[in-house]
């Protein structure tokens, strides 16, 4: 009894306590989503969301955030929709690495050892649900992490402003991608990321949002290194998404920009962010968004 049952009961009691506490603080995050519904445009994604130069747009993003977490953030946002929601357009930053070997390995393995579980997945704790353990399409390791991470007593972070980045890479900038990105047809292997992307498209359709997929310009050292088959698969998936009603793919990834537009091979300096803003505002206009760029 004291050797096995008592400690088991204590752990179960702790689990119940954690879940109760979590439910108690969940409204604090829900409130942020409810407030975001007052805005016509809301932004989701990873660190690239920080390079979107649209002031006054609520953004729910974390560096290195995976597509599964993004999907759950969007699900939580949809669930918090009040009757008088102003949000008609949702922006999502996307690029090939969201389906890349590193992103997929993080989602499929228990712990990649790079701290991503704590730094990125853990930041999504408020939107991870105990019930996600039963999402049978997802790897068991990831579902286990959902359960563990969902115990965190965090509040969701919402940012509003855009902080311009003045730095840029040198003219002779080089970067070497991982061997897997070079040689493997990783898009085909990215089952979890593709599952999440498909759910995001479904969610946008169900919620009646215009979904704009923003692919930022990527440094010229990036695309030539990638596995051609994987890139072709990615492009075809994006085109397929673009053909869906209400979905718009802003394909700027291969646009040729000077090195001064980049902070590294996939993050933008202020110059790069300003370059993206034009097409993005036009896309917002095209979908009839009420977003108005605040005057400086």
């Amino acid at each position, binding site marked *: 009894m004291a050797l096995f049952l008592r400690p088991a009961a204590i752990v179960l009691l702790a689990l119940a306590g954690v879940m109760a506490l979590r439910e108690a603080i969940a409204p604090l995050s829900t409130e942020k989503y409810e407030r975001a519904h007052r805005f016509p445009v809301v932004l989701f994604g990873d660190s690239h969301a920080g390079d979107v130069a649209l002031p006054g747009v609520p953004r729910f993003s974390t560096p290195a955030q995976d597509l599964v977490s993004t999907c759950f953030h969007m699900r939580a946002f949809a669930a918090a929709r009040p009757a008088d929601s102003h949000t008609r357009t949702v922006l999502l930053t996307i690029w090939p690495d969201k389906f890349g070997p590193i992103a997929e390995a993080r989602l499929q393995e228990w712990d990649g050892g790079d701290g991503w579980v704590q730094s990125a997945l853990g930041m999504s704790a408020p939107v991870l649900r105990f019930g996600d353990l039963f999402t049978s399409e997802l790897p068991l390791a990831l579902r286990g992490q959902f359960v*563990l991470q969902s115990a965190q*007593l*965090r509040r969701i972070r919402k940012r509003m402003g855009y902080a311009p980045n003045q730095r840029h890479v040198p003219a002779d900038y080089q970067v070497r991608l991982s061997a897997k990105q070079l040689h493997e047809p990783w898009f085909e292997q990215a089952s979890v990321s593709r599952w999440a992307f498909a759910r995001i498209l479904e969610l946008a359709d169900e919620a009646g949002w215009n979904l704009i997929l923003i692919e930022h310009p990527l440094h010229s050292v990036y695309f030539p290194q990638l596995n051609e088959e994987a890139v072709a698969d990615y492009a075809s998936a994006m085109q397929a998404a673009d053909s869906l009603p209400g979905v718009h793919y802003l394909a700027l990834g291969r646009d040729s920009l000077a090195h001064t537009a980049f902070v590294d091979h996939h993050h933008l300096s202020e110059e790069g962010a300003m370059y993206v803003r034009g097409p993005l505002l036009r896309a917002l206009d095209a979908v009839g968004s009420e977003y108005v760029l605040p005057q400086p």
Partner: protein
Amino acid sequence: MTRFRCVTFAPVHFISIAFWLFLPTVLACHVALSGRVRAQNWVLWVASCVFYGWWDARFLLLIAGSTAVDYMVGLRLGKTDDARRRKAWLGLSLAFNLGALAWFKYAGFLADQWIAAWASVGVHMDPWTTRIVLPVGISFYTFQTLSYSVDVYRRKIPPCRDLLAFATYVMFFPQLVAGPIERASHLLPQIQRKRSVTGVAARIGWRLIFWGVFKKVVIADTVAMYANEAFGNPACTGPLLIIGVVAFALQIYCDFSGYSDIAIGTARLFGIRLRSNFRFPYFSRDLGEFWRRWHISLNTWFRDYLYIPLGGSRHGKVRALRNVAVVFLVSGLWHGADWKFVTWGGVHALFFIPLFVMGRNRKEEGRWRWWHGFQALWTFGVVCFAWVFFRADGMAHALEMLGRMGRGWGPEGWNAATWADFSHFWSPCKEGPGGGMQLPCEETIFGWVLSLFLLLEWVQFRRGVRWIWRGIWSAPWVEALMVMAAWIYGTRHASQEFIYFAF
């Protein structure tokens, strides 16, 4: 310069899912074989091999070698009364164990000093690179096996004639990698006799495990973020550095004593009592008391196997002073092959020796009076000063940090904004009413948790460990709260390796 890169590998980590599957499994096997000591010892030995060889099974051979040599030496010592032969057999044990320790832990350090010495007289030797993997726990189990050979040599204990029991004594997994360092006279008889686990023992064992996990995950790993910031950020000055050093003092205490609690608690579940390793050292009134309360198993080892053989205090004050200094310096070196550890030991020796000269090092601890608070504060300050050397990246870093401590005491170095920058690992601070900085909720909650922990430590120190776990504190929900906190904080930040795994 030569680069001997010492890399540790990790056994099953106490704070891991693997351990929480491993422990009940081993426990169930142990319970199923209740009453059959030999079979239970097989379970413990195999479990210990799995535990230690989890990441890298190569070093099981080293422990097997150490086990075989000391077992054989013990048997030989038991068979002969010839003084020269006995010395030779003991010499073999010392040579094997200390030789392994010297190679894995100190070869790189000695080679670096050798090359640096030649370089100072203008002879530049070609650097060569090698890679020595430091087997985790080598300093602990080496001392444990050595104590067996010495005790058999001194005829304090009879030689063990059961190889399985002896191997289990050397490898007993709860204390294998970071102690407490057990003596054969205490642990071996427990392994050899029939063991039973009462309900009370099981409750105490689990409570110690949960308390240890709480100390490690909630306190040590969280204050580690402040310590890492202070020791890693060259912009930190004065008060922030002091806070960082105090944070490290708390971190290393909760990390190491947490490990010891988990080890002692785990052993209790198998019907084995390990020796206490910590007794609230930061409430000590002087350094003598501190060293009777800190890492007790190592310090008593040094007393019995180094200080007393050197002559102890039997040959006059001067010789005794030399022996004390040797013990402190060797204690520093035991932690690692680096001058910073030697300096850490040296600082303790420097502050301990005056007490020793005045005969106050063995003063009875007695009743606590209010003015003892000042003495405890002074002692804690000295200990923290020494921790700077222990935690810094090297001597130069430690001295540079001590220099920086004198700066930044004005309003420019100590205000809400610098604190917000220092504790950036929490959510951003907000502007509170009246324009002042408001700490994030998470940081405030942690402040309360830390205060409660310190209060519990104080009450245990004053009223005794048993007192605190009576009445309402013995209720299961108290332990559930500890597990809850560990879960919440354990997923909040990356778990840090136990500090003493590196030794």
